[in-house]
């Protein structure tokens, strides 16, 4: 009886750790936006005339939306996932027709009242949901080509539509769902080989081969040590190590002989190997200066010179991590990244405790999307990945982004709170 009563409570079984992490990250974001676009005439952090004031409103709205999601019935999400997906796809088509062009991307639909909606942000949520629904269906196995193709189609349709905007960043986010497929049985080689090659390619351009090899060997040794009972993993790791080392030596060759000069130049600039400080390399260079000049403890809240004097463009949105790095230093960066890592691991933990495959698959989707955003966003601010404009979840300025991540996360919390029930 007691159990039943509790189940009726809105907050029964809610994973408070996740909610807490969510609120902490939102708050960090809000304060950093305050620092990034600080306006002496409007010093108050809740002044509605400024972006930090607006972000405060967005946070309140997002929290309210999160509460509403917790009020809903769990089954609702599974049942309506095709509808969500359909609406999203329609919106993505609509945005191509009536969308507002901002910064070269036709990504926004004007909602009136000064608010704009970015359908691609919500596409992540609905795609995860439909993918979960499909893969959790009876007799669906990713290992079977037919199922794999269907899953790929679910992911591919919004990708193509977003690509048409064209918003490369948001498109690439969907690639992260490969982790979901992998978890559900996709051959590990898909993941291992492609991921490894991309990573190594980038890393090989940034560091000299010897240090990478040392790093890889150390990493392999660590993993083998941690999972020393898993023989299969040991074998895989050793094979991977061998492939990686040989690939590193190939990278330089591919880079200088296979790629065309303009391609290598573009990559060079994006990676900060060569600098075009006034042109394409300006953002990344200034962003690196901001973060690098933070040293261990940072320059202090509202004291970042790069931040305060507008050296980094788009600093409240895609380059918000500059403010963290500059004003809070390495310590602050570790805290923020640590919080993200904690959140992602928590989501995976939640995923694995689900009885229903739908919830688990959806949770992996959430983890993958979060992970991709965090890595690409922070990576580009410190010049390890090419600049593709995607926001840092919960921290970057922007209502659509905050709302979509809130929905993404709170739906998971809702599903998790009902993990004992049957969907």
């Amino acid at each position, binding site marked *: 009886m007691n159990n039943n009563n509790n189940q009726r409570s809105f907050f029964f079984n809610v994973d408070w750790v996740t909610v807490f992490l969510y609120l902490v990250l939102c708050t960090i974001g809000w304060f950093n936006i305050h620092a990034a676009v600080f306006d002496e005439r409007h010093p108050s952090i809740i002044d509605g005339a400024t972006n930090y004031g607006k972000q405060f409103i967005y946070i309140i709205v997002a929290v309210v939306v999160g509460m509403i999601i917790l009020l809903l019935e769990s089954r609702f999400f599974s049942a309506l996932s095709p509808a969500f997906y359909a609406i999203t796809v329609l919106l993505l088509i609509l945005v191509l027709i009536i969308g507002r062009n901002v910064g070269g991307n036709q990504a926004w639909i004007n909602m009136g009242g000064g608010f704009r909606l970015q359908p691609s942000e919500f596409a992540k949520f609905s795609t995860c949901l439909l993918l979960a629904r499909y893969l959790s269906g009876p007799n669906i196995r990713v290992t079977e080509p037919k199922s794999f193709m269907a899953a790929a189609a679910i992911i591919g349709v919004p990708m193509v539509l977003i690509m048409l905007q064209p918003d490369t960043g948001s498109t690439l986010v969907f690639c992260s769902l490969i*982790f979901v497929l*992998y*978890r*559900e*049985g996709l051959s*590990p080689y898909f*993941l291992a080989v492609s*991921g490894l090659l991309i*990573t190594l390619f980038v*890393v090989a351009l940034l560091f000299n081969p010897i240090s990478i090899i040392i790093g890889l060997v150390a*990493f392999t040794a660590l*993993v083998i040590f941690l*999972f020393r009972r*898993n023989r299969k*993993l040991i074998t895989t790791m050793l094979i991977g190590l061998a492939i990686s080392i040989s690939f590193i030596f190939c990278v330089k060759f591919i880079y200088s002989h296979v790629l065309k000069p303009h391609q290598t130049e573009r990559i060079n600039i994006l990676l900060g190997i060569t600098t075009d400080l006034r042109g394409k390399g300006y953002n990344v260079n*200034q962003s*690196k*200066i*901001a*973060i*690098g*000049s*933070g*040293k*261990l403890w940072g320059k202090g809240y509202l004291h970042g*010179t*790069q931040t*305060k*004097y*507008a*050296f980094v463009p788009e600093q409240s949105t895609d380059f918000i991590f500059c403010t963290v*790095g*500059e004003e809070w*230093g*390495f310590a602050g*960066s*570790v805290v923020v*990244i640590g919080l*993200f*890592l904690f959140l*992602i*691991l928590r989501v*995976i933990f939640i*995923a*694995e405790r689900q009885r229903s*495959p739908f919830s*688990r698959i959806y949770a*992996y989707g959430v*983890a993958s999307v979060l*992970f991709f955003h*965090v*890595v690409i966003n*922070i*990576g580009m601010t*410190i010049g*390890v990945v090419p600049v593709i404009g995607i926001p840092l979840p919960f921290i970057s300025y922007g209502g659509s982004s905050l709302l979509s991540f809130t929905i993404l996360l709170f739906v998971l919390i809702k599903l998790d709170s009902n993990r004992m029930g049957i969907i």
Partner: protein
Amino acid sequence: MNKFFERRYVVTGIFIAIIFTLLARLYYIQIVDDRYALYATKNVIRNFIVYPARGPILDRNGKVLVQNEPIYDIMVNPKEVKPFDTLEFCRMVGIDKAGFDKRWIKAVKYSPNKDSPFEKQVPAELFASLQEKMGDFVGFYILPRTVRTYPDSVAAQFLGFIGEVYDRDIKLSGGYYRLGDYIGKTGVEKAYENVLRGQRGVKSMMVDSRGAQKGSFANGAFDTVARTGERLTSSLDIDLQKLGEKLMTNKLGSIVAIEPSTGEILAYVSSPTYDPNLMVGRERGNNAAKMYNDPYKPFFIRPIQAQYPPGSSFKPLSALIALQENIISPSETYYCTGHYRAGNRLVPCNNGEAHGSVNMGKAVAESCNGYFSMVFQRILERSGTKYTEAEFTKWRANVMKFGLGTRLDLDMPAESRGNVPTPLHYDNVYKKGAWRASTIISLAIGQGELLATPLQMANLECTIANHGFFYKPHLIKAIGTENVIKAEYTKRNYVGIDSQYFEPVINGMQAVVEGGTARRSKIPDIIMCGKTGTAQNPRGEANSVFVAFAPRENPKIAIAVVVENSGEGAHWAAPIASFMVEKYLKGKITPRESGITVDYFANANRLPDLGLYELDLKKERRRDSIRTARADSIKKFKADSIKKAARNKLANNNKRGVWVNFLAAGRTGK
């Protein structure tokens, strides 16, 4: 459990690994690599030079000759400007709407988000009212600066002026100056540039990505303060200087007055002069051009650059040398017949009227040419006419001890030497050994090749006033609080005449004023000792010269006055000198027995007729150009003839060559 359960570890592992890669990279750029902190500093910190105000220059009594006037530039940053009442603004600044638009467009064109001057050099009177209302005009602000200002507009040639540095100045300074800096160009501004300029400060400012200033860096912890230039106290007496410039109005010439007991220059008048304020501000360029083209050359620093024959004012010096050399005794008489015959030359004296019997005192007082020609000839010929050159060399050395023919090392740039001719000069003009005392007899009366600057003439009077020595003349007596600026200024320079020989000469000089040539210029209650000079001038009328010191006992002032192209020394230079002396000694000018007044001399126009003056100048130039043209044509002719000769020779050679070859061939053939 799901059969792919263990894959969670792989996914987790990948996530952790990648995120740790990010952290490693962050660690590298934030902790290991120090460059970024440096770049960030470079981004936001700009060092601005703070220019100190130049040091002021005072006269000997602490009155201001040049100081810095605050002026106000209205600056604007177009980006920060908020809508405001344009009409009110225009009314306040004193411009019309069209003028406003013009300035606005210029400012925006310069930079839409950087500060630039909107209206330059707003006078101080406007400042108070502007300051009050500036709050209404966001984006505009007032920048105080300083410019040189000359409250009494005197002593332009002494003070000189400043101007923007040339590339050469920048190079010479080893990079101290930067383009657009100001540097002393002439006069004391140049001579004392190093102390006047002060020490520049540096201000570190924070700027944003567009270069707009955002406040000081680290609350000014790394700023250095600009130090104002040192205050210079000059030896000039501003009242005396003003009187001198007034008296010399509309005349060409110079007045130099020196305090004999120190060598401090009291007056340094160069005429025509100009208002030094003309060399400041926006009209500077036009004004300067006008003055450069002025045929009377206001930029010519006559006290030290003009070289005049001293004329009869040289006679006391001749007398002193003769006494020292035991050529003549003060009481010995000479009978003047109205002219002096030297060889086949006739030196006229007193317009041909005989002075009769004159001793040294009278000879000085009456300016007897005959007496001094006689003395000069006796000096040069005392060892017989064969040794004229040796004696002349000795005489020359004695003259030069008085500071003639050499620079006196005045603490000002561009001093002339004057001229005491060398034996070599006469060897060139005549022939070696072909010149005698009679040939160069005009030196005896301060004519001929003898040239002296007004400064040298005044210094000569100091020497006589001091009975045998002088202090190096100088114009600056104190730098800041430091009163002795050079040890050599306190050193007596002896001229090699025993002090006992001065009395007879000074007696004569007193008589010049008491009842001699300059008797009209006698000052009531002051014994002035002087000597007139009417120096022949190759250009137009003779220069009027007067040198003097006063009072006789314990002299306070020595003076030299030259009024160009004005004739008798007694008519123009002497009265002017007397007013200067009286003004300095009494502080005022009392009515004279002779009835001469300051106003008369101040108002008199003695400027040479411009047409004639320019004609003379042109003539001189033409003479020069004819000479150069002739030299050129000679050179050309020589060159041509050499070429021609060479050509002819070549042709002949060729012509002959055939024959020679032929002949040679024929010969060898045989």
